[in-house]
């Protein structure tokens, strides 16, 4: 940006911030100040003896947060498949939408090149740990019920998630986009089982040229609402 634009920008910002009171009055957008209370109310004839209605707010146990752990398998492209485990926390904004944060860890194996070449190693062993975090937005696309026998019904949801985050693998932090879907089975109204499938996309350049890799994950989880 050119210097003069930046200076102009800065001046606008400074004027609006410092001259907050002055500006809002100037443009008439500020809240009007209440007139000073007069000593005697002018010409009041009837004194309204209406009791102020007291509206009470019940203290209800809100259970919009969901926290839990998961374990499953993850296929790290070129580095084999291994166990993945992690934790999840979600906040249900409406009956449809939720936001979710996940962290997880898996371990990359040897690439086929490393297996065939004998001793050669592309990355150090301690760089094979695949650690990720993601921030996702989710939507309960198919809320429903599951029945076991004649007398038991459990609430269920199919949901879709998409989001972004970062993955630490092969010595670097890598920008990661992930998306997927899952099935939530509410064992009680506060305890849920999950089955999730996700794809973590990231760019990696350690095998010659830079390419986008798909790292597929399937996991089972348990969460508790609170």
């Amino acid at each position, binding site marked *: 940006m050119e210097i003069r634009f930046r200076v102009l920008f800065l001046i606008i*910002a400074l004027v609006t*911030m410092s001259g907050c009171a002055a*500006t809002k009055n100037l443009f008439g*957008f500020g809240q009007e100040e209440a007139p000073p209370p007069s000593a005697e109310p002018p010409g009041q004839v009837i004194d309204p003896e209406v009791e102020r*209605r007291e509206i009470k707010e*019940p203290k*209800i146990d809100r259970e919009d947060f969901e926290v839990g752990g998961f374990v499953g398998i993850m296929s790290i492209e070129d580095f084999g498949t291994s166990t993945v485990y992690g934790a999840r926390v979600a906040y249900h904004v*409406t*009956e449809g939408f939720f936001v979710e944060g996940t962290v997880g860890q898996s371990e990359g194996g040897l690439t086929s090149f490393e297996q065939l070449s004998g001793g050669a190693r592309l990355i150090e062993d301690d760089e094979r740990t695949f650690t990720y975090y993601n921030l996702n937005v989710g939507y309960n696309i198919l809320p429903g019920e599951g029945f076991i026998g004649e007398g038991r019904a459990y609430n269920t949801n199919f949901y879709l998630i998409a989001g972004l985050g970062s993955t630490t693998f092969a010595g670097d*932090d890598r920008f990661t986009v992930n998306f997927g879907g899952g099935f939530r089975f509410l064992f009680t109204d506060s305890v849920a089982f999950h089955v999730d499938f996700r794809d973590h996309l990231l760019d990696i350049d350690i095998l010659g040229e830079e390419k986008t890799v798909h790292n597929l994950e399937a996991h089972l989880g348990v969460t508790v609402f609170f």
Partner: protein
Amino acid sequence: MLEPSTTTIPLTYRRSAFSWCACLVALALLAIVPGHADAADESLRTVAVADPYLELHTGPGRGYPIFHVVDRGESVEITMQRTDWYKVRAENGVEGWVDRAQMELTLQPDGQEVDFEQADLDDFTNSKWEVGILAGDFGGANIISLYSGYSLNPHVSIEVWGSQILGNFSNGWMGSVNVVHETWPDWRVSPFFTLGAGVIHTSPKSTIIQGEDRDDQIGHVGAGVRVYATRRFSLRAEYKSYVVFTSRNDNEEVEEWKLGFAFFF
């Protein structure tokens, strides 16, 4: 020599085991007590049906079928809330989910209205705290940011930001403190200006041979909008222009665009 250690270790173990037990008991108490401590609160959770009937759904959502109705005059106990749905227990023990619109038509046992708290545009303007997540582009690199803000008044707030920068050639972290000014905070789409300063840490990627880690100071100016979405949820979009005060001859200039969401409370 072994004897003292064998006596010492179990002691520490016992102490830590005890503290764990204490923690667990305390947690259990915390979980139980709020439900039963306040008799007044408990009475508030029982409401009488004032509409011709109250519809109980099998789950907390529009699509779940209505399987039971509670008639006018009967009372129900509210046991749980999830988003805009309330789980209630009728006098005959049947439990189901009722939406907010119907719950607002119930009355307290003494005939007064019950207020089911719901955040609105007014809370969006006057809330003290805000936490949000934004992501976008920082001079060609990807950036993910987390921030927390405190409002000194509806117009002015102070924010602390932490960001992770993920680029093709280098990665980094950035932390900054901002002052944010909203000229019309009572608008649903509320524009703001921001000024701030902080530090940036950059380290070249492991595949880049040259270069070393750097810590630099930054200053920035920016503008954006906060948009009230629903409940305690808002959206935010912003542009910031950064100046990185490097130790070289020229300062760096970086432009940043970000989009994300926030919760206020």
